[in-house]
C-alpha cells in the first residue's frame, strides 16, 4: 500500500472521522484534510457558524495523521495537549486543514495546524499541540 492508501484506510477506520465527514488529500508528503459542510457541524444556527469544537477536531485529526506520515507509523500518536486559537467564525461551507510537524523527538512531537475556508490566507483557526509518539514511530535522522 502506498502512503495515500494507508492514510485513507487509517482514516476510514476512525468512526469519528466519518461522523465529521472528513476525507484526506495527499500531495507529495503534504496532507490536506477536507471537511465538507454538513448541517450537524453547526454550532450557531443564527449566524450560522460551524461549532468551534469541530474546527478544532479537524485540526487535531490533521495533526495526528500528518504525524503518522512523518514518523512512518501505522498507529496514531496520542494527544498530550492542544491549544486552539479562534480567528474567524467558520461559515457554512467546506473547511480545509493542514499540519506541520515542527519537531519529532524520541517520545514527543510538536505539531502546528491551520484551518481555512475560501481563502488559504484567511485562517479561521490555528492549533499547536504536543503528541506522544506511537511505539513503532521512527525518529528522523
Amino acid at each position: 500500500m502506498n502512503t495515500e492508501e494507508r492514510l485513507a484506510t487509517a482514516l476510514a477506520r476512525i468512526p469519528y472521522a466519518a461522523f465529521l465527514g472528513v476525507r484526506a488529500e495527499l500531495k507529495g508528503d503534504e496532507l490536506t484534510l477536507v471537511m465538507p459542510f454538513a448541517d450537524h457541524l453547526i454550532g450557531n444556527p443564527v449566524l450560522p457558524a460551524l461549532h468551534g469544537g469541530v474546527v478544532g477536531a479537524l485540526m487535531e485529526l490533521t495533526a495526528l495523521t500528518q504525524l503518522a506520515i512523518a514518523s512512518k507509523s501505522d498507529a496514531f500518536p496520542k494527544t498530550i495537549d492542544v491549544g486552539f486559537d479562534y480567528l474567524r467564525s467558520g461559515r457554512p461551507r467546506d473547511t480545509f486543514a493542514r499540519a506541520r510537524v515542527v519537531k519529532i523527538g524520541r517520545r514527543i512531537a510538536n505539531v502546528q495546524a491551520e484551518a481555512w475556508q475560501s481563502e488559504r490566507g484567511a485562517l479561521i483557526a490555528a492549533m499547536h499541540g504536543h503528541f506522544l509518539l506511537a511505539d513503532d514511530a521512527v525518529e528522523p535522522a
Partner: protein
Amino acid sequence: MSSDPPSGYETGDDVFTRIRAMMQWTPQGRALGMDLISLADGKVRGRIPYSPQIVGDPDTGVIAGGVITTFLDQLCGMAVVLAMKPPGPVATIDLRIDYMRAAEPGRDILAEAHCYKIGRNVAFVRAVAFEDAPDSAVAHATATFMVNPAAVKRPGANLREKKR
C-alpha cells in the same frame, strides 16, 4: 463555540432550563447528545453519552479527542453565559486542553466548567472532564471568551451617525 441566546431566552424560564436549551440549540451539541446535568456555585456540569460513532481509536474504543474539545468548548461557553448579567452571545478566543489519560471506553464523559473571571470584553474559564469525579480527570481545559462579540465597542458609539 459562539452562541446567541435561543428565542424565548428572556422569558420566565428558570436558569437551568435556559442553559440546557442553549446547549441543545446547537446542531453539533444535539448530534453528540450533549446534556446539562446541574448548575451549582457558578459551575456548569454536563454529559456526553458514549456512542460508537464518536470513537477515535477503533482498536481500543476510546472516544476521539475532538469530541472532548467540542464538549469542553460548549460547556465553557455555557459557564460564561451563566456568569453574564444579563446573558448574551459569547465567542471562543482560545481553548487549551491537557490530557491526563485516555477516556475509559464505553463510558459517558462528564465535565464541569467554571467562569472564574468575567470582564466587560473577556471571560476566563477553567474546565475538567472525567467519568466519575473531577479529581480523576481525563482532561483539564482553560479557555478565554469574547463577551458580546458583536456588541458596539465604545459607550455612545450607537449615538454617532453612521458613515454613508
